[in-house]
Structures are given as C-alpha cells and as structure tokens.
C-alpha cells in the first residue's frame, strides 16, 4: 500500500512540474531540430568553385550500397577539355530510389570525391508510387540546401586541415623544446 502511494506521489509531482514547463513538441508546426550528424536521405554535393557536381559517376557508392538503391553513369567532362575543371569525368545520370534506401551512410563513407552526403532531409513523403525516385537535379538541390544550412566543407579538406594543424602544433612543440 505504501509503495503504491509512493508511485502515486511520483505521478503527482510530475504533474505539478509538468504544469510549469510543458515538454511536448507540437511536431508539424514546431519541428524538432536534428543533430549535426543526423543521417537523412543521401544527396549529391555541388562544387561552387567550378559550378559542377563533385560526383564523377565512379559507381563506388553503387557497388557498396547494401540495397542497390542507386544507379549512375559517367561522361567526359566538357569543362575539363576547356581547362576549367580538374575532373576528367563527370556524372551524367544519377538516381536514388529513396523507398529502398535504408539510410545507412555507407555510400558517404566510401565516396572518394566528397560527392555524396547524408542530408538532413527526412520529410519526403509523396503521393505518387514512384515519387521517391530522385534524379540528379533534385539530388543536387537537396545537397545544395544541406551545404548552405551546415556550412559544408568537404571531409577530405577538413581532414587535411586537421592534419596540418596537428603537424603545426607538433612543430611548435619541437621548436620550443629546441
């Protein structure tokens, strides 16, 4: 009996604190912010410097995808012939079937060109049965949105910066010890 009363006291105390500060989020009107590492649907990134996608259509992501939800093809990069871009090949066609995608992030991990990211996009329900087959322009749109929102820096550039900083710090300590 005493234990039951204790339980009831807990409920009562929570009700009183609950009156003071409601914690329920009114979801559709008040969206819960996602964490920086949140893995939403994959999207392709846009290289603003030469205005072309990072993706070269090398198919690494497609080979490593556990669900085979992507397809792509590559073509010769016209901008490389003009000397504007260092990319010899560029993506021609890219499609992700988001209904099949399991948001595992393996494609991002295996990409050698920083070309694919797990965007923060997750509310993408459509009325059409094939509405979640997303093509290249749409993927780039999502990617651009993500890049702007998160101030995206290519992971390889980030890793290089980090390594350089570590090296500089090591040099400094070496100098100091000399």
């Amino acid at each position, binding site marked *: 009996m005493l*234990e039951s009363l204790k*339980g009831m006291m807990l409920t009562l105390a929570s009700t009183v604190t609950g009156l003071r500060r409601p914690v329920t989020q009114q979801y559709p009107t008040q969206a819960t912010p996602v*964490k920086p*590492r949140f893995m939403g649907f994959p999207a392709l990134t846009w290289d603003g410097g030469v205005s072309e996608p990072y993706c070269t259509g090398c198919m690494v992501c497609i080979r490593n995808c*556990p669900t085979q939800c992507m397809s792509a093809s590559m073509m010769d990069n016209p901008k490389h012939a003009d000397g504007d871009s260092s990319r010899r090949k560029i993506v021609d066609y890219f499609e992700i079937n988001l209904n099949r995608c399991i948001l595992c992030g*393996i494609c991002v991990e295996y990409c050698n060109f920083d070309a694919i990211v797990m965007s923060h996009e997750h509310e993408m329900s459509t009325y059409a049965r094939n509405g979640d087959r997303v093509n290249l322009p749409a993927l780039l749109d999502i990617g651009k949105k993500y890049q702007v929102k998160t101030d995206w820096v290519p992971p390889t550039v980030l890793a290089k910066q980090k390594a350089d900083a570590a090296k500089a710090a090591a040099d400094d300590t070496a100098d100091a010890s000399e």
Partner: protein
Amino acid sequence: MAEPAVPTAIPERADSQPVEMLLNMGPQHPSTHGVFRMVLWVDGEKIVDVEPHIGYLHRGSEKLCEGEQYHQIVTLFDRMDYIGNFNNELAYCMAVEKLMGLQVPERAEYIRVILCELNRIASHLLYVGTMGLDAGAMTPVMFSFRGRERVQALFEAVSGARLMHNYFRIGGLKEDVPDNFRQLVDELMPLLKEDVEQSDRILTFNEIFLSRLKDVSPITADEAIGLGLTGPMLRACGYEYDVRRAQPYSVYDRFDFEIPVGLDGDCWDRHWVRVQEMYQSLRIVEQAMEQLPEGPVASSLGRRLVRPPEGESYVRAENPRGEIGVYVVSDGTDRPYRLKVRPPSFCNLSALRRLLEDTWLADSVVVLGSLDIVLGEVDR
C-alpha cells in the same frame, strides 16, 4: 503436457463432454510485442497447452548475409534485435574480428562498451514500460520512454540515427564520437539515473503489480538451463551467469559491476533483475567514461574490403535479452559462406510452453511480457 502438434479438434473427455477450448491469440494482439501468435488450449481459465507460431516477420536475414559483403552485414544486424542495435552490431563485428585476428583500438572498445550499456538501459526501459502496460499500468511507460528518448538523442548525436545506427565497423568504429561527447554523457547520466529510479519506483513494488507478477510461472535454475534460457530469464532463477563475467569480451573485465540475481525465477524476479541491471549498466558507463582513453578508433584495416581468411568463428555476447551467438564461416571471399545467429529472444521463447504450464489465461500476457521478446530477432 499434450502432443506438440497444433491441436485442431476440440478434445473430448472421458464423459464425452467437450470442455476444452482453442483460443487464438495474435498475430495482431497488442501484448505480443509484434506479430506473434499463440494457439492456446484452455480448460476454463486454465491453460492446458500452447502452440507458438512465429515467422510473421521473417526476412531471411541469415540468408541475406550470404549475399552481402562483410561491411554491409552490419546494417542487417541492426534490424534483427531492433531494441538493442549496438549490442547486435558488437557481436557481429567481434565475430569477424576474431576470424581475422584483428586488434581493435582501445578507445573504440571503450566507446563500444559505453554505447552498448546505454543501449541496454534503453532496452530495459522499454521493457519496464511495456511490462507495465501488459500488467495494466498505463503510467510507467511515460516515465520510461522519457529516459529512452534521452538515450536515443545521444545515439543520434553520436551515430546520426536513433535506431539503425550502423556505427560499429569491423576493426573499430565508423568515426570518432563528436567533440562534445563527454559533455553530452555527463549531462545525460544524472537525468537517466533519475529516469531509471522513477520507472523503478512507480512500478516495481506497486502492490497491484506485485500481485499480478509474484509467483507467476516460477521456474528452477536447473530447468531454465535445460530449456536454454539465458540473460535475465536465467539470472532471475538465482543462477549467476552473465557472459560479460563468465567469458569477458571487449573490455568488460576492467569494470566493477554486480550481477543481480533473483530468487524464485517468477515473473516479478525477471522484472526485478532487469531493473537492477539498469543500475549496474549506469555504473559501467560511469567507469568507462572515467577510463576512456584517447587515440584512434579504427584499426589499420581502414576502408579496405574485408576478406577474412578461410575458417570459422563463434562469438557470444550478452545482449539485453540474453546471450547472442554469432557463427561465421568464411571461404576467403568478401562475403561469408554461412552466417548463423543464436538469437536470445528465440531461445527464450522456446520455453514458453513450459512457462505457461498450469497458469491462468490472464497471466499468459504477463508471462510473455516477462520474456521480453523482440520479434525481429525471433523471426530474423
């Protein structure tokens, strides 16, 4: 007990009076925690026999594993026991690491342990909530899900996903934890402790709850071992067996924690053991955070294609639900030749017929709830 086959006809007694009845529970029954069907053979309110039917969620995960590369299989293990994802990932990664003789960096081991123990708490919190619902208490689930939500927020910050993390890799982790990981855990721990205490206080010693669970389907330790029960199911019988202690894997031999055991092996003891385990998991997380070293989190393997040498390995680990075993056979290619999982829920569920022997029909829901099964793992 009667014949193991599904009873199809209404049995007749010697006096030719049909008194027993077939009762179909499930697959769409709220208390079955998924899609699980029990064909109950009842005599009045007493259960005479039960025939469990599984396979409604069968996806052929073990067969799928044979067609996937080693690094892709982690995603399949996430989807087996979808309440204890990190623990499942750990068991699989350890099996392949053992096959390859791979050394995992210390920091990665510690982060794995921290996440696994937090996952155990999240899993047991879910259990406390659903056990309350099974016994007719609607409030505890509100308290336990608040704690579970907090743990999942941490998981999202670390791995990017709340449920299907795909964070552990063969030889380490996908990436290091975020820079503010220590701060996040430090903020989480006192709140989580409070949540665990509250969901314990509101339910465990409640008089109605006690009378619903105490002395319901007790089982002795000998019998439990004979039936292949593991995890909290076995420890509730008073047998102190925990893989983390009996055969320490990862870095579990470096932590000081107790193994809670029950007395009678009844439903309430199973509940009590799980609640006490949450406190012990909190202790392990605290110790692991203190000892957490700096350093790399991935082995020298890096992103290279995993090709274990020919051979086989078996690894067991303590999941929230019991002992998981992963058996991998490699033929030297990038895909396993065969992969077999010993799922704890499935093995625990196989004791259902014994556990429901001579219980009341109304208790069947409580007994099933105390098994704490996850159908994704039972059916695989």
